[in-house]
């Protein structure tokens, strides 16, 4: 079984210029865990998931956070992430912050021709439940753990 046989071809995506508010609306409406960020020509440039929303509570921008990532935690006194319940953020942030500021640019993808076995192994390794499917660098679908489980059930005649 290949990724191309199982993946979902209709994918909800956003542009990097979308606002935080628009992104939250998409998360709320579609209840997806991962949303790919694509350019006009369909190239995938990042992903956004619930965890990336936590960046809103960081006291500095995403470029700075990226720069700090290689510095060992103990050299930073560990907690570069704010406590979201205690942090002070302004209500303007919903329209001022863009997806471009929040998206994750280090992410894993699979190709249509990849096996389900490899995809499942990648999901387990990365502790994620959804992976963008690409052809070259263009997004062509998304595959979730649920899609894989359903495919296996179908294959075994359970459903």
């Amino acid at each position, binding site marked *: 079984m290949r990724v191309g046989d199982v993946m979902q071809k209709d994918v909800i995506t956003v542009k990097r210029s979308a606002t935080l508010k628009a992104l939250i609306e998409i998360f709320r409406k579609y209840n997806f865990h991962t949303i790919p960020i694509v350019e006009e020509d369909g190239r995938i440039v990042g992903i956004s998931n619930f965890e990336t929303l936590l960046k809103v509570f960081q*006291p*500095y*921008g995403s*470029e*700075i956070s*990226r*720069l*700090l*990532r*290689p*510095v*060992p*935690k*103990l*050299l*930073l*006194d*560990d907690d*570069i992430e704010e406590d979201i319940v205690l942090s002070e953020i302004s209500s303007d942030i919903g329209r001022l912050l863009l997806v471009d500021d929040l998206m994750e*640019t*280090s*992410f*894993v993808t699979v190709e249509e021709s990849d096996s389900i076995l490899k995809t499942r*192994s*990648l999901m*387990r*390794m*990365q*502790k994620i439940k959804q992976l963008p499917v690409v052809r070259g660098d263009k997004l062509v679908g998304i595959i979730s753990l649920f899609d894989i489980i359903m495919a296996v059930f179908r294959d075994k005649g359970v459903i």
Partner: protein
Amino acid sequence: MTNNILSIGIILIFGLLAGKLIHKLKVPAITAYLLIGIAIGPFAVNLVSKNILDNAGLISNIALGFIAFSLGQHFSFTQFKKIGKSVLYISLTKVFVIWIAVTAAVWFFLKPPFYVALLLGAIASPAAPAAIMMVIREYKAKGTFTDTLIGVVAIDDAWGLMLFAFCFSVAKNIYYHTAGSAIIASITGALFEISGALILGGIVAWVFSRLSRYASSQTELLIYAIGFVMLNTGLALFFNVSLLLANMMLGAVLVNMHRENYMVFETIRSIDSPLYLLFFVLAGASLHLGKLGHMGLIVAVYTLTRLPAAILGAAVGGFLAKASSRITKYIGWGLAPQAGVALGMALVVKSTFPETGNFIFDTIVVTTIIYELIGPLCTKFALSKAGEI
């Protein structure tokens, strides 16, 4: 007066508790680890076994190897292009000017062997991310100046470690070649250590990448990652090449090889803190308190040179990058704190140079404590002058 395993248990528990306690007094945790190290070391209650203290150099080599591996991520081609010109120039010139100034001042005023001055200059070059971040967070500083400061602090350790690796190789070769052909032998020896390290790191990264595909869970990936960093460190020691550069190269090649490799760094990041805590506490425990009385001159020369050099170096970088006058004038003040990797470097030096290592190590511990006290005040001054607190 205790066994090795008990010492490690005491160090981890006391270190963490002291860190949390002193953190409430607005002192960076690393200073707390140093102080608890002094308290449980042989000059106070003596809870650390001699065997562990004798092997502090080994633990530092391993800890610095992991730090170098992690900092190798900075050299990802895609991320490197995104580093602003100001951050790049300021971090480079600041590290370089501190190195030159401290080396020259120590050599001029104290006339030690040249390699001692060279090592002190290199160890003086990086800043202390924890102390600086603490001030930024405490005063909720925000703005371009703060962003540039954080950027410089993030990358500064990488330059500092790289510079130290070069100087360490040169120093070792000067130290072991005292005969007539000293200079040529030292230079060729150092070049071998550096180029050998880069080749070793590259080869180990290639093998890692080939084998890591067989890791089918995060646990297995973690075991692979720790194993390969240790293998690389061990091979570097075996071939007598720079373990810091070898591990930095391993990290740099991995981060550029496959996008998925970022997971390797993430898994290691989740477990490396106890190792670093151990080596900070050991740094405190290794301090020769009895000799501090004779260190007035070196501490004065080092302390009084490092801060002006940081201010000048950062200003040169700011000027070259055409940064705003606020950044050019004050960012050097913001970079005053010293700790973290400097202590690790000093421990490695202590274990490598039997005659002069203690002198260098004690100087760095004392000046680190001084800079951890005055450094945050300088950072606050910089942020306030820049109008961001």
